[in-house]
């Protein structure tokens, strides 16, 4: 009999009070009552996939410039107004979406929504502010690209997606420098539109009242956006390991990726559990081997990234330079083992509980629930998915997990990149298989 206390009977989560509606303009609004602290979390997600080579740069400058003035307010006035509500508001962009992220003292929610509406309909894009944000964006890009992991991510994306828009993880500095206020304004006019956008409000609110407030505040935001034609995500072509030289690196960034399944696929829960067993949580095979047995790295991670056009299984590890090749060897070994031998019942039970528990933990907070709902909304999923997912995980069998691992975790499926000191690591990597420098 173990001295470790048994788990007691689990308590059910309380049912959340939620309301949602789609406005005439096509904006979908979801409000969830989640008291706790007297705040409201706000996420406004606007689809932003674009196809042209200049799109990422213009989108970045747009996101950087959106809060530099709107309607009667200059930049500092707008920021003062937001702060006066006890609020915070920021805008970010990636290949899939433009995202407003905010939070506010609950009684002042209406005030923050009014300011968001002002930015959506009357952003100023003053030429001097846009010029300033362009300079800062270029400086931040140079900082980002000095990081080994960012270089690895960019090279991996380019290798997997070729000339597809997903290949360009960050904009180029030249394209940013060329983005004019007029182009940014036009992008705003064409794409920052309510149809297809989703507004999530989570916190100390009455859902119906919050929906009314939001619909009223955003009533003037209208018009249909342009819908660019986006090519399908191609199948990543088979390719040898790419070695990218970063002289003097004391660690190598290892990135490996392959196509996975979206959340809506019936086999997704099994793949989710297979990934956890491989490297998706601390007690996984990869972490226990690479970190707790060998000490090659601080933390290898394996996760499934759900992007709008496809879900990607992504492995990353920063390994000490002198053990770069052995780290790749152990990684390939653990992947190969997943793909060719069955997993155990004990492993499946552990990751099942972890997947159920960590979903409950991450959605037990205002910020966690708001961000999760916003991410799910891109796939037409909502609170029901969060509530029903534990039951789907319960139904997965050991055989299902082994099958998912066999189908998706075979090492030959992966596109791989190593960024590091090539003079030290390339020869030994080449011993393990073909590489390209």
């Amino acid at each position, binding site marked *: 009999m173990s001295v470790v206390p048994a788990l007691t009977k689990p*308590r059910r989560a309380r049912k959340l009070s939620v309301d949602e509606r789609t406005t005439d303009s096509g904006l979908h609004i979801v409000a969830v009552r989640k008291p706790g602290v007297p705040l409201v979390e706000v996420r406004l997600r606007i689809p932003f996939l674009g196809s042209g080579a200049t799109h990422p740069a213009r989108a970045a400058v747009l996101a950087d410039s959106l809060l530099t003035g709107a309607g009667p307010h200059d930049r500092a006035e707008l920021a003062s107004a937001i*702060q006066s509500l*006890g609020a915070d508001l920021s805008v970010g962009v990636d290949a899939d979406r433009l995202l407003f992220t905010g939070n506010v003292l609950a009684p002042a929610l209406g005030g923050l929504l009014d300011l968001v509406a002002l930015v959506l309909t009357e952003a100023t894009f003053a030429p001097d502010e846009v010029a300033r944000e362009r300079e800062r964006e270029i400086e931040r890009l140079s900082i980002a*690209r000095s990081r080994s992991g960012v270089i690895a991510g960019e090279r991996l994306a380019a290798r997997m997606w070729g000339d597809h828009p997903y290949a360009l993880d960050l904009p180029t500095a030249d394209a940013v420098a060329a983005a004019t206020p007029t182009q940014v304004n036009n992008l705003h006019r064409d794409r920052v539109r309510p149809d297809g956008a989703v507004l999530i409000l989570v916190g100390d609110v009455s859902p119906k009242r919050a929906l009314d407030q939001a619909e009223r505040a955003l009533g003037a935001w209208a018009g249909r956006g342009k819908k660019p034609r986006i090519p399908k995500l191609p199948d990543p072509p088979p390719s040898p390991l790419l070695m990218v030289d970063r002289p003097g690196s004391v660690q190598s960034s290892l990135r490996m990726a392959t196509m996975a399944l979206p959340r809506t696929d019936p086999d997704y829960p099994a793949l989710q559990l297979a990934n956890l067993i491989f490297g998706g949580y601390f007690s996984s095979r990869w972490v226990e081997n690479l970190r*707790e047995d060998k000490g090659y*790295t601080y933390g290898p991670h394996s996760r499934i990234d759900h992007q709008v056009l496809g879900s990607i299984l992504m492995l990353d590890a920063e390994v000490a330079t002198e053990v770069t090749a052995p780290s790749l060897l152990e990684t390939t070994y653990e992947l190969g083992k997943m793909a060719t031998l069955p997993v155990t019942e004990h492993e499946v039970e552990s990751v099942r509980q972890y997947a159920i*528990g960590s979903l409950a*933990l991450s959605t037990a907070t205002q910020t966690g629930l708001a961000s999760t709902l916003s991410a799910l909304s891109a796939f037409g999923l909502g609170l029901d998915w969060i509530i029903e997912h534990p039951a789907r995980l319960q139904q997965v069998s050991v055989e299902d997990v082994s099958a998912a691992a066999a189908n998706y975790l075979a090492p030959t499926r992966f596109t791989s990149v190593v960024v590091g000191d090539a003079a030290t690591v390339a020869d030994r990597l080449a011993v393990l298989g073909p590489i390209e420098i």
Partner: protein
Amino acid sequence: MPKLAAALPKLSFDVTHHTLDNGLRVVVSPDRSAPVIGIAVLYDVGIRSEPEGRTGFAHLFEHLMFQGSTNLEKLEHFRYVQSSGGTFNGSTHIDYTNYFESLPSNALERGLFLEADRMRSPRITEENLANQLDVVKNEIRVNVLNRPYGGFPWIYLPAVLFDSFANSHNGYGGFEDLESATVDDATDFFKKYYAPGNAVLSVVGDLDVDETLGLVDRHFGGITKRRTPKRPNFAEPALTAERRETHHDAHAPIPAVAIGYRVPNPVRELDDHLAHILLTEVLTDGDASRLQRRLVQRDHIVTDIAAYIGEFGDPFDERDPTALTISAHYPDAASLDAILRAIDEELERIATDGLDAGELDRVRRRLAAAVLRELDPVISRTLEFAKFELIYGRTEMIAELPSLLEAVSEDAVRRAAGGLQASRRAVLELVAGGSR
């Protein structure tokens, strides 16, 4: 401008305090809104207490606390937490070290057992020490050595701003020091600092208070009482002459600077401390702040700038002495003097002319909201309760922060700005060695 919301929100939490016979201080707070709990143990030892020649030891030791304990083999701690549906972590701070779990509430007793088991005795072996030494060296490589601006400024600024070994040394540790650590060092460190009387246990969430106190007593009550160390006085007086140093960063593409000031005792001079916190918000929080407007928007000489108190940006995380830091990235190495001059001018302007109408109120409101936001997740509330109990001796103080901030006068903020003179600062310039 939109109307201001009503007064800052009032907070109240149901907190029960209890001290076990062995000296362990316990804080329990129920919140039955979701079936999750947080468990945290904070030990009153951090980077500041490392012996000379053992830089980074508090953090290395933190890793060893996860390597097995009285009843558990290596890897079992992680597996028990995660197979219960939970997550865990630990972190080493200037004045304390924390260990915590976020769990479904049906794992309450299991979580308490896991913490008690390692408070009783961790399994420190040569093999585990060697393994975690490699892991920690890789942690330092990924966060410091292989990364632009790695460890800047928290590792390097204290060496310029402070004088004593305790306050100025590298808290992540030099590889030579880390490599010379022994199992005996670890055993001694545990004996000296990890006594139950030197710790606070905080349990928050979906729980019954009496039942929880009973479980705490069952699992922690039998841990033998030991002597607790007396904390030395680490105080250092304000600087009287400016100090300047440079730090070379091989990966950074553009220069950076960190300016540090020794500021009042955050515990004993709480009013002054709060005024300094509000000052940092006035200086750099958001696009309406003084230094964003001056240096980013008007002069166009910095990319970004941030002012904060505490080595890791949490003003309530450290006892005396603590630092106020202003740090910035900037594209042109030649503009450092202009940046310093502009900061001095803006501080002087606040000290002389005071704040604009409404400026202090909006900053205060935002800060209060940020405090609230931090308290929403059960696990961060668990950690904050333990931290305020440990550093301030009063968990309840966190609920009073909005009203304490409300009580800070404009004059106090002006005085704080007036105290940050050039002669009192330490300036660390980061020289960028990477390509753009």
